[in-house]
């Protein structure tokens, strides 16, 4: 296989004397979707935020297409960031802008595109997530699932090389989860490279090449879903998933 799109190499992070990430490494090849699972507080979100430098790792290296982030220097971290899309649990749409302008504003201000060009692209991306008719609505007028799809469109418009998704469906009620998962599945099938933290095991197992189980800041187990989840409750990961499935029903 060619060199990975994203490589996370020996990342550690501690906060207030507590080790949150302990020597975490993983890599993503082009078009791959890997899934992070594990109990809350296990370091999944912190890992994603460190990859994006929303938090600065204490040690280790993030390498994007063979280029270490440390080469870019602190001043160019914004250039590094815009190549990676980030989806948040609670959407984080810009409340004062319509759906269309939520998608367009980064194109205009960061990529310096003209207003017309940015809005065109925004409409395309909104259509891609099934929201062609919602462009003029403000976040407060959208459902949770629609908001999350706008935030996916917003990330996609920047042409990211990798997408990081931090529990994208955790803040949604069960009826709305499906529409977001469908967009993510389509995206994966179209060849987007993604790393997703989620509790939707049932969904993830059909799409992902590898499930990574994180607990107490470490990757304790990882492997193809069939392998990892079929150890009949012997492993911690299989046990955790069995519990989730009990709660949510098999997906």
């Amino acid at each position, binding site marked *: 296989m060619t060199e990975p799109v994203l490589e996370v190499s020996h990342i550690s992070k501690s906060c207030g004397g507590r080790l949150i990430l302990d020597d975490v490494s993983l890599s993503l090849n082009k078009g791959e979707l890997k899934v992070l699972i594990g109990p809350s507080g296990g370091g999944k979100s912190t890992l994603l935020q460190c990859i994006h430098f929303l938090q600065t790792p204490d040690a280790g290296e993030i390498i994007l297409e063979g280029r270490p982030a440390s080469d870019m220097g602190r001043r160019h971290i*914004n250039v590094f960031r815009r190549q990676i899309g980030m989806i948040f649990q609670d959407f*984080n749409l810009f*409340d004062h802008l319509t759906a269309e302008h939520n998608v367009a504003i980064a194109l205009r201000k960061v990529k310096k595109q003209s207003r017309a060009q940015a809005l065109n692209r925004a409409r395309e991306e909104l259509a891609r997530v099934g929201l062609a008719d919602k462009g003029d609505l403000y976040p407060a007028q959208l459902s949770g699932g629609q908001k999350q799809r706008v935030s996916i469109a917003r990330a996609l418009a920047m042409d990211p090389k990798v997408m990081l998704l931090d529990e994208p469906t955790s803040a949604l009620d069960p009826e709305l989860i499906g529409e977001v998962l469908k967009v993510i599945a389509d995206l994966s099938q179209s060849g987007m490279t993604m790393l997703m933290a989620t509790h939707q095991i049932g969904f993830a197992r059909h799409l992902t090449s590898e499930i990574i189980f994180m607990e107490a800041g470490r990757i304790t187990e990882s492997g193809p879903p069939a392998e990892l989840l079929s150890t009949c409750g012997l492993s911690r990961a299989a046990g955790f998933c069995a519990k989730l499935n009990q709660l949510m029903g098999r997906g």
Partner: protein
Amino acid sequence: MAADYYQALGLELTRGFWLSLKIIGPSAVGGFLIGLVTGAVRGAGHPRFLARLLDGYVALFRGTALLVQIFIVYYGLPNLAQALNLPPFWKALLSLSPYQASVLVFALCSGAYHSEYIRGAVLSIGRGQFQAARALGFTRFQTFAHIVLPQALRRAWPGCGNEIIYLIKYSSLAFVVSARELTGAAQSVSNTYFRFTETFLVAGLYYLALVTLATWLFQRLEKAWARP
């Protein structure tokens, strides 16, 4: 005699009213701009040194009486220039006319209050939107200018409008440094004709009209800027 009085009342108070407007206009705009920058920097806490410096400015202007501030700027600064034996250029610069001293002090005082409304509004914008903007590659400044401030201003605006309405009324303090604005004119007319009640009643109506107009205008703006 009565005709003289009414003529003086109409003429002087209208003239005073215009001077009041000329004081209030630049003070309101200047104060708002000072408050915007000060509140934004203090809300962001960055650059840190500037934020601390502006904390000091706000503490000073919110912590002292407005009347004291006017006296210090109008009488104190020229005295200070004299005492320090500054070069003539500085002496001239520090000797402000009653009009200049009033506008300067009102803008600085008003700015200190505006900055508190704006700082509070900046702090109320969720951390998540800041993160989302940074994640899209916005610089810290762009995030602030395009995401945080437009929302913070909407939240701060009712408070800022309130502050401008206060300003309309405390502009009357300009008369203590002999600016013949509305209150000063009313004072002089009533002293000449010994008719205090009617004179100040009319002056009060001028203020009421101006405040009503401002209230209406601010509400229009609030509605125009509202987002669902």
